[in-house]
Structures are given as structure tokens and as C-alpha cells.
């Protein structure tokens, strides 16, 4: 574990922003922290970096106890804030230099890292321009870049793609994968399930200040949906076909009306293929779909609410 939060409680007046939160971050992974607005993601991140005090619980980073006065730990951590917090009155390169400098980089070392980051975020040609002239996507990229100059071991990204176009979003998601591939551990906070599905090795789902589920994407989905629903249109339906499908292990129920088959099968049993093989022997498949559950369903099942209650996204 590169970092962990145990039983962390943080109150704001009557609000339990963190309600006995447990979070484990393994070295080298991209951990997705998924939760709706107000779930406590930002609060969790702030306490992990030691920016706010906690009421109780224990936070460890790099094996050390984290706290608001432990500034030295932060040298190896990077924060990408939810809001764009670069300096609009300074150029892109000046922003990167300043943030690198804050983390103790100097001289040639600073310059080479600034150059590397400019290339990485695709702003080399715009290095001398001020972010006020940038598009939303470019500003977001600079906002991320400012946390990369000092090569943090642990990078924490708080909803880094809010309010940008799909192309910039994909660029950023790809970048996050590259950052992780170079050995940086990433905590990626979002309320877009597509994003965690696309890039995260492991996912913690947060709601009301707690982690309500944790695991890999497949584990989380498997945890709530033990069944897949397969819908198939057979070319030549017959009782023999129905019997053969029922004989496939893991198939729990088969209902037929005309050409339409609805088959309930254990999740991830690989039965889609087997059912197709069987049906091909009996004259072929016209159409087949399997309803896969997604994280939205997981959240819905666990909380009875939708991840995004209307509004944006």
C-alpha cells in the first residue's frame, strides 16, 4: 500500500463529509474514486494530502502518518484540483516553472522537466501564451501539467475532465494511462462511470462520505448482478434447440416466444459463446445481445439512487 485511510471521520458542522472512510491505494495502480456530487471525494483527497485536519481515524502515505503539518510528505505527491487553478496572468511555461519550483526543482532539472511536461500535455507550441487565451481543454491540460513537473509518486486528480469536449477528455484519459505506465500511482476522482471503466484498475465507489463498494470493475459488477440476460433471435427455433440451450451449464432459465429466446445465465460464465455454438448447429443465429450491467447499475443497486441525478454529464 502506498497510502491508506482508516476509519476517517471529517465533520463540517452537522455534515459528515467523511463517515468512517476506508481507502487503500496500491502502488502503481489507477484507483478510481467514483461518487455523486457531495459524496465526499474532494474531502477525502484533501485529507489524504494533509490539507485539512480530520476528526478521527488514521491516514498513512508512503508509510508515514499524514497530517496538516507534514509538509515534507507532499514533495512526492501531486494534486490536480477540480477547478482550474493555474495563474491566468502568467504564461503556460511560467506556470509550470513556478509549480516545479514550489516542489524544489531548480535550474536545468526544472527546465528539462518543464519541457517534458509541455510536450506531454501538447502545449509546447503554446508555451509562451497565457491560459486566458486557451480553450477549456487546453486549460485543463495545463491544470494537469502543473502537477506533473516534479514527477510525483502519487498523483491525485480531482475530476480533471469536468466541462470539456469529448476529444480533450480522451486525450486526458490516455495521458493518465501513460502517467501510470511510467510508474506513478494515480487516484482518479470522477462522477463519470465511463471514465473509471476506461482507465481504472480498481474502483472505490463513494456515497455520503463512505466507500460503499470496492474492487475491480468485474468484481463490482459481479457483486450485484450474478446473472446476464441474453436475448437471441434464432433462425429456426425448435424444442430440440431449447433443450440443448437448457443443457448448457449455468443457464438458469429459457423462455421462448416465436423466434425470440430470452436466456438467463450466470454472469461471466462464457455462455454467450456456448449458446451461439449450440444455436448454429440448429440452424443459426439471427441476432444476439447480452445485457451487461455497468457501474451505474451497481450504484443504483447499492443506494437506490442514480449516480448522476440529472443535470450535467
Amino acid at each position, binding site marked *: 500500500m502506498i497510502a491508506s485511510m482508516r476509519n476517517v471521520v471529517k465533520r463540517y458542522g452537522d455534515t459528515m463529509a467523511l463517515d468512517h472512510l476506508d481507502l487503500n491505494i496500491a502502488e502503481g495502480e489507477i484507483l478510481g474514486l467514483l461518487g455523486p456530487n457531495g459524496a465526499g471525494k474532494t474531502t477525502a483527497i484533501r485529507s489524504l494530502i494533509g*490539507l485539512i485536519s480530520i476528526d478521527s481515524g488514521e491516514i498513512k502515505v508512503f508509510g508515514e502518518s499524514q497530517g496538516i503539518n507534514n509538509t515534507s510528505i507532499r514533495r512526492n505527491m501531486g494534486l490536480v484540483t477540480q477547478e482550474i487553478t493555474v495563474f491566468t496572468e502568467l504564461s503556460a511555461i511560467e506556470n509550470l516553472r513556478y509549480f516545479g*519550483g514550489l516542489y524544489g526543482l531548480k535550474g536545468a532539472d526544472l527546465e528539462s522537466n518543464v519541457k517534458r511536461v509541455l510536450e506531454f500535455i501538447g502545449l509546447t507550441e503554446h508555451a509562451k501564451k497565457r491560459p486566458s487565451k486557451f480553450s477549456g481543454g487546453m486549460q485543463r491540460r495545463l491544470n494537469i501539467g502543473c502537477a506533473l513537473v516534479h514527477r510525483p509518486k502519487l498523483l491525485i486528480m480531482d475530476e480533471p475532465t469536468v466541462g470539456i469536449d469529448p476529444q480533450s477528455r480522451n486525450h486526458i484519459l490516455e495521458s493518465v494511462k501513460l502517467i501510470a505506465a511510467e510508474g506513478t500511482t494515480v487516484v482518479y476522482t470522477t462522477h463519470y462511470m465511463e471514465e473509471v471503466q476506461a482507465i481504472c484498475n480498481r474502483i472505490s465507489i463513494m456515497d455520503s462520505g463512505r466507500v460503499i463498494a470496492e474492487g475491480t470493475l468485474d468484481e463490482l459488477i459481479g457483486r450485484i448482478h450474478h446473472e446476464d440476460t441474453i436475448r437471441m433471435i434464432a433462425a429456426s427455433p425448435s424444442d430440440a434447440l431449447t433443450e440443448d440451450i437448457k443443457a448448457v451449464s449455468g443457464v438458469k432459465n429459457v423462455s421462448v416466444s416465436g423466434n425470440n429466446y430470452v436466456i438467463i445465465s450466470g454472469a461471466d460464465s462464457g455462455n454467450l459463446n456456448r449458446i451461439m455454438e449450440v444455436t448454429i448447429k440448429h440452424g443459426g443465429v439471427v441476432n444476439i445481445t447480452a445485457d451487461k450491467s455497468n457501474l451505474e447499475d451497481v450504484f443504483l443497486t447499492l443506494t437506490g439512487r442514480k449516480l448522476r441525478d440529472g443535470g450535467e454529464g
Partner: protein
Amino acid sequence: MMITKHYFKRLLVEPIGLAINVFFPVLLVFINVTVNVNAMEGGDTLFSGYSVTATSIATLIMVMFQFMYGTHMVDLFFRDFKNSRRWRLLAAPASLSKYLFSIMMASVFFSVLTGVLIMAVAAIALNAHVHNPFVLLTVIVIIAVFSQVFGMLVSLLIRKKGVAEAVCVLFSFFMIVPSGDFLVTININIHALNVFFNYMTPYAQAMRAIMASGIMGNSVSDNFGGALQYMGRDMSTALLNMGTLTATTILLAIIVVIVSRRRSF
């Protein structure tokens, strides 16, 4: 040092800030001196060949602006620490007090340069006389520090940036106008208030220190016509006022430290 440079640069690259804080007072000195000299029958009063009008007006405007420059502190503090940029900056391995100290250093440096610029322009272009460069510079530095500490206090106590900046500006007016040195000639009939505005305010102390270090001669006597009127050359008065101004600044700094411990901001 790196952080101080950063803040200094940001004060320097803001065109509106430069216009209001640097260009405007210089312009104000020019206009005021020209208008006043032209209005004088028989021309400007000269002392040892220097313009008395330009000297007093430039000094007054320079000092008045120095006392407003707490706005630098307020501006930078609010821009960096009263919004989510705060978290990004504090996530770096630097403490809040380090940032605040750096903002203060940068703002003091910027204010002092502005003050020196105003006086230099007045001396070169308007025939103003810099009585005693050492005293003048020292007083500018002390007021600059005072104003940044004041700006810090205001930032801690007031939630709205606009209000905080207005307080810094008005603070300067409230010290200067009742002394009768600026805009209106005021004769307050309450002795204690007269003493307060002519001797005790940081403005009066600063002005007395600069004026008392002058070579304008001993002819003008001390009176309640405002701190600016004091033109006797008297280094001990200059030093005394510099001393009390420093003490006032230290006192204010202590208050700020106490307030900052009680408030989480």
C-alpha cells in the same frame, strides 16, 4: 525567494494594477503641482532653488498611496487563498506562512519601488527636493511594511475582496483628510483629535519624519495646520517619528499574529 519573485512578477504584469497603483499617483503629482503652481500669484515659492509646492505635494501623494498599498496584500491573498487555488498551493511542500511572508516581501518591494519612482519623477521633472534620501527611503520602507501588515489584518477580518480593498484605501484617507493636509483645510476644535491626527497617526508620524529631515529651513513653525506643514529641520524629531512608526508597525504585526491564530481562514 522563488515565491517572492513570483508574486512580484504578478504585481508587475497586471496592467490595471500598474495603472492604478503606479501611473495614477505619478499623474496626480504632475496635475496637482502644475495646477497649484499656476494658481500662485508671483509664481512658486522656492527654497534654495527647489519648489516647495512640488516637494510637499509629491511627498503627500506618495505617502498617501503608500498607506493604500495594503491592497497589494489583499489582492494577492484573495486571489490565491480565498478560492480553490489555495488547495493547490498548500498541496505543495510550502506552508501558508511562507506564502504570506513572500506576498508581503513582494508587496513591500513593489510599494517601495513605486514610492521611489514617484519621488524621483517629482525631483527630476518638477523640481521637488528630496530632503534626506536616507530618511525618505527608510520611512517608505516602514510604511510599506505597515501597509502590508494592515492589508493582512484586513484580509483576515473581511470576507469580500472589494470591501477589504476599499478599507485599505479609506484607511489612508481617514488618517490624512482630518489632518488638513489633503483636499480640505480642516480645523477640528477638539484638542485631543487635533493632537491625534497631527501627531499620532501613522500618516502623521511618517510625514513628520520626512519633513523634519528636510533642509527647507527652520522658518516654518510647528502648528496644527497638518503634519505636512512641519518644515523645521530637526533630525531628532525625524528619528523619534521613525521610531514610533516602527513601534506602531510592530504592534500591528502582533495583533495580526493573534488574530490569525484565532481565525481559521
